[in-house]
């Protein structure tokens, strides 16, 4: 009998990507919440290289790195496609998922939590990156077309976590004026029932982020 476990953290967009992938395929799994300040022996055993969540364990065999896990989920189980079937479209999906992880998420996150010149530099970098995504979504409902795919799942930080964080820290980066297509996508994405059921509660995230602000030095 198939045994599927996810080692994750409730607030992590990377962790949620894996859960979304499994839910899309209708796969039942056991979820294990990790305390990131006190990682379990089991997590360190399953991901000795990076020692991070998420980790998917399928019949005792671990897979790490959220995008690698999503491709595995797509291949291992029947159900709605996470990646397209056509090789060129697959290459494009992989490209944009990687782009999100390497060029969007880091400066966007940095822009939220830094100050002064560092914040301005991160904002500029993030703005440039988001412009490319804005052009790519180009009025489509989802990056995956009519249905959610790899890039939409990968962009969960942009669709959900970032707008919440942005508001709390007072950063006006992903505005509707500057990014009408992305803003529309974010709305569609977060309100799509399947996604809505699988996101961490807004108020709990707000609480965490406000806590981070309070812990920052007084000069902020």
């Amino acid at each position: 009998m198939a045994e599927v476990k996810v080692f994750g953290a409730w607030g992590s967009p990377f962790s949620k990507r894996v859960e979304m992938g499994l839910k899309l395929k209708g796969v039942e799994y056991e979820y294990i919440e990790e305390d990131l300040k006190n990682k379990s022996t089991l997590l360190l055993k399953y991901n000795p290289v990076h020692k991070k969540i998420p980790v998917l364990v399928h019949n005792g065999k671990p897979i790490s790195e959220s995008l690698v896990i999503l491709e595995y989920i797509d291949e291992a189980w029947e159900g709605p496609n996470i990646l397209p079937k056509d090789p060129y479209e697959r290459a494009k999906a992989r490209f944009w998922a990687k782009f999100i992880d390497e060029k969007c998420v880091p400066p966007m996150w940095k822009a939220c939590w830094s100050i002064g010149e560092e914040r301005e530099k991160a904002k500029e970098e993030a703005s440039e990156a988001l412009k490319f995504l804005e052009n790519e979504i180009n009025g489509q409902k989802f990056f995956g077309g009519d249905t959610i795919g790899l890039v939409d799942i990968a962009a969960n930080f942009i669709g959900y976590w970032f707008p919440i964080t942005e508001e709390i820290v007072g950063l006006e980066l992903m505005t509707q004026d500057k990014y009408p297509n992305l803003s529309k996508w974010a709305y569609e994405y977060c309100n799509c029932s399947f996604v809505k059921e699988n996101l961490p509660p807004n108020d709990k995230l707000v609480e965490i982020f406000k806590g981070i602000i309070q812990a920052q030095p007084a000069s902020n």
Partner: protein
Amino acid sequence: MADEVVLLDCYYSMFGMRARVALAEKGVEYEFREENLANKSQFLLEMNPIHKKIPVLIHNGKPICESLIIVEYIDEVWKDKSPLLPSDSYQRAQARFWADVIDKKVSVAGKGIWSTKGEDQETAKKEMIDALKLLEGELGDKRYFGGDDFGFVDVALIPFYCWFHVYETFGNFSIEENCPKLIKWAKKCMEKESVSKSLADPNKVYEFIVGMRKMYYGLE
């Protein structure tokens, strides 16, 4: 209809070499176009407007960017010969995971060794040795990372072999001393024509980097 395949590349690029090795493994005829990275062609900028980097594979007019994405594309399109990714989903996930480790650890450390000095260089050197030892552990007693057959992770890593001379000279250490099994693996790979004809001459790479160090980093 005959396939039209163009590779925008740069002789010294280990990322470009990945594409060359993959194409050679599949016996694909293609046009190699050398780019001058100090003066990028308009065509390159059109084909890769987001990163403006090589390699770019252009298949019947459609561009694919990012070396590992290119290799997967090549594997999927020319699937009847020399499969690079394993057929088992779990093994595929492991191959993707380790290719990502190479990008995150080897590539970054490598650049640090030849473009920095003092403490930064020492850190990069240590990170390189750690990364190569980690990979050597993953190789184990297998002939290739792919097992009996040359595969995806082998393609991802082997191009760095022609850069070892650069790392060893500027970092003042011996990779063979630290990772003898890895060197044995590399020499095995070099027996394959697809590899030996695709990799750059280590002495030419060295001369190129001597020039780069002077011009861009003020290092002798």
